């Protein structure tokens, strides 16, 4: 559900960028970390609506998912998303949805059991490759 507020953050960032530089945003890429388990359709819908109603209307975008990699600091083992979140409750997934780094609180290394986990990739949302044209 908070996909909406993320879209607000993205569109306002681009608006400001556009306003400051006097340039028009043509397109951008949204990379969504797999751990955040965001609803891509909701995010895309919200982005479309907000873009249309804003000064960056006309901007095109794509959304893609960055696979998660969670590394164990003890044994070096790397877990992919499915392994990292397997066995977690609905409530725990919901928390990771907001704060992907909290995987460190809920999961443990599937190889050695260590709680010393860090997210290497596939955490949150980032906006990349903003293409703009002069006004």
């Amino acid at each position, binding site marked *: *559900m*908070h996909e*909406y*507020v*993320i879209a*607000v*953050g*993205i569109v*306002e*960032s*681009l608006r*400001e*960028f556009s306003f400051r530089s006097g340039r028009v945003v043509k397109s*951008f890429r949204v990379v969504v970390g797999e751990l955040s388990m965001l609803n891509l359709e909701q995010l895309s819908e919200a982005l479309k609506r907000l873009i249309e109603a804003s000064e960056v209307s006309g901007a095109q975008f794509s959304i893609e998912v960055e696979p998660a990699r969670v590394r164990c*600091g003890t044994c070096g083992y790397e877990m992919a998303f499915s392994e990292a979140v397997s066995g977690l409750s609905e*409530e725990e997934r*919901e*928390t990771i949805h*907001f*704060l*992907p*780094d*909290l995987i*460190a*609180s*809920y999961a443990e290394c599937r190889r050695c059991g260590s*709680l*010393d*986990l*860090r*997210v290497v990739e596939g*955490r*949150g*949302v*980032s*906006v*990349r490759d*903003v293409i703009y044209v002069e006004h």
Partner: protein
Amino acid sequence: MVDYREKLVEKRLRSISQVVMVTGGKGGVGKSLIASTAALLLSRSSNRTGLLDLDLHGPSSCFILGVKEAPVESEEGLVPPVVEGVKVMSIDLLARGKPLPLRGHAKEEVVKEMLALTAYGELDYLLVDLPPGTGDELLTVSRYVRVNGVALVVTTPTQLAVNVARKVVEILSSIPVRIAGIVENMSGGGATSPSRDLAREMGVEFLGSIPYDLALNSLVGKIGGRELLSTNFAESLSYILKKAGFKIT
């Protein structure tokens, strides 16, 4: 690369009149108890008040205030639970007592996301309870509150605590974040103390001292917010907050 959280944090903080960072550097000096009690006192004086616990490894505010409800997801983000009028957000409401072995950049990420996603709405005061140290939590939040932020630096009358507090004051002054003053907690009551010396040396106001309150030991975590307000601790803190210019009636 655009970080969408920056814009959201800015926007959220614009609806908050004052962000009060409760810091000090040293652990165990009473930052959490002061942040929680200050939030209760400000709320009682009809201020719209929030509390953000940024002690990611050792969150204490929810335990002190007896808050247990999880924040609720809405279109606007995470709506924090309310206790005695105070909107409280803490990692503890999400991690629920589980350890949080955060490494490297993770702390900065979590702090940014808690600031970006918590829907406090309009507030007169947001109290921020900081962990010991001068790391990512202090530095990240300091960066965002240069306009409407103010710091309460908590010490005890020991040289050990004052040594660390000096570092906090130096860092805050460099950013710069306005320092409301130094609060000496667990005070012996003398007119001289290393905390007073520090205040003089650094040109920061000495806001006053809070005596050691034996009653707290048996109270903290066993009572709710309301009872905390009737302690001697709360009374001393109330004077200090007034002196710092906060709206306490």
